[in-house]
């Protein structure tokens, strides 16, 4: 798919059909489908062309959602997706396309489905993210390190299956978390993760869980106000400062 914005025209096919057929017919059919879609805002693409709607798809059982943050992850996760018999939405952050990184030549390099990754180890605060949010989180962690704050960056890689164990493990170590997402704030990745943490790690919480996301508005064309509406490294730093 050229961009994920156009997936809305195919939502019925994806959600009502691809995601349901295996269950509805009690396993008689499989839908071994991988839908690749470029995702994300930027460069004044305006309200209809600036979506990062991965969480909408992750809402529905029956569909897996892959959101890699590095070229190597993209390679291993795409291999895994193609070899898997479930329908999988595989999103690729437009903003990450021009950022190179090492990729193995091994044709059997396959990353496990639903397993996240610690992209940077730390002990004072956990930054939980996926796709482009990982980039902001890593940049923020680098800044924080200058002040002696060691942030752990958890890259979930998959919105479904969701690697909650990895989140809980990190949180139990740091006792604080900021969730960083490119997408909208309501009914979001951030809402889900925050709810899961308070449920499973209540005794480990030293501060409220913070979320950094896009503002709750459609994206406008004009550059200045578009940037105001979007997450960035500074917003991550501000959120960390609030809970340290």
């Amino acid at each position: 798919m050229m961009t994920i914005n156009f997936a809305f025209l195919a939502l019925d096919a994806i959600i009502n059909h691809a995601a349901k057929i295996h269950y509805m017919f009690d396993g008689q059919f499989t839908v071994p489908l991988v839908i690749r879609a470029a995702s994300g805002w930027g460069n004044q693409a305006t309200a209809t062309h600036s979506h990062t709607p991965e969480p909408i798809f992750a809402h529905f059982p029956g569909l897996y959602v892959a959101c890699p943050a590095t070229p190597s992850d993209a390679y291993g996760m795409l291999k895994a997706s193609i070899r898997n018999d479930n329908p999988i939405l595989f999103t690729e952050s437009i903003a990450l396309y021009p950022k190179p990184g090492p990729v193995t030549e091994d044709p059997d390099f396959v990353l496990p489905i639903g397993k996240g990754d610690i992209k940077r180890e730390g002990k004072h605060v956990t930054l939980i993210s996926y796709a482009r949010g990982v980039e902001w989180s890593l940049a923020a962690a680098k800044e924080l390190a200058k002040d002696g704050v060691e942030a752990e960056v958890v890259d979930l890689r998959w919105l479904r299956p969701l690697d909650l164990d990895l989140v809980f493990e990190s949180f139990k170590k740091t006792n604080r978390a900021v969730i960083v997402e490119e997408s909208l704030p309501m009914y979001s990745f951030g809402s889900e993760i925050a709810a899961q943490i308070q449920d499973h790690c209540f005794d480990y919480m030293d501060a409220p869980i913070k979320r950094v996301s896009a503002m709750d508005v459609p994206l406008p064309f004009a550059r200045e106000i578009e940037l105001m509406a979007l997450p960035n490294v500074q917003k991550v730093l501000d959120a960390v400062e609030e809970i340290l």
Partner: protein
Amino acid sequence: MANPNKETLLEWYRQMVLIRLFETRCDELYQEKKITGVYMHLYSGHEATGVGALAALRPDDNVITAYRDHGIALAKGVHPNPIMAEMMGRKDGVSGGKGGSMHIASKEHRMWGGYAIVGGHLPLAAGIAFASKYKDTDEVTICFIGDGASNNGYFHEAVNISGAWKLPIVWIIENNLVAMGTRVEDSTAQPLLHLRAEGYGIKDGGRIDGQDVMAVHDAVSDAVAYARKNGPVLIESLTYRYKGHGVSDKSYDKRFADELEEWKQNRDPITLFERVLEGKYKNIGPELKRIHDACAQAVDESVEFALNSPEPTYDDLIRNVYVD
């Protein structure tokens, strides 16, 4: 057949030249980074279709189109100043700088907008036409459609319902032979797109020469008269775009170089119309030149206006998400 007088013909000429100069300037402003972003789709090459078709409408008739919309807005009478301000994302733009190039609308002019999701505006067009009928007005709606858009599901649903409900609408497919880089014959087994009318039980307005403003006006005038009384018409207007799909399309000029050159040399709508005017009226040259200069000045003024308009602010960012 309509027989427009000299004043009318010169007005069409003015509009076509204004669109060409406006679009050419937008292209330059993009290179100069005064217009920014990733999307801007120019109407250059299509002028005769937009101008000839909209000349068949009354001011209270409606028009709606896709993202290739600046020329349509100009032809519907929207002033170049607020269009240019929109191109630059300024507060005095038609959409307050929030819509940009792909979302030029002016309610006052019954220009319902440019829309960026391919085919997305077709159901809106059917809805506008439905409202005209429901409210017992005799307004007509023209909906411009790309050849590519004619293959998307929205097209079938909207055109079908327009036929079932006999809506007062003229569907005009602007067939410029290519959708981004995909040629019509590679996406469509029946490349005569107007033949689809029969499948929806609506009037087939035929395939017309979209570079001949007089021919476009004739055909669309008949279609509008028919739509006002009886129901929908589908017209296919054969045209050509002079620039890449949008500003990010860098390969078009090379890929289609020969064809492009051929259309520019032999089928340029403005040159063709100049010839008609020169044949019809002796020594019209200086008058055409005056019109051209006035358009150039209007474009200059629009740039000045846009550059002097403020940027939208935080208040604009959060305004109009909902009706207050």
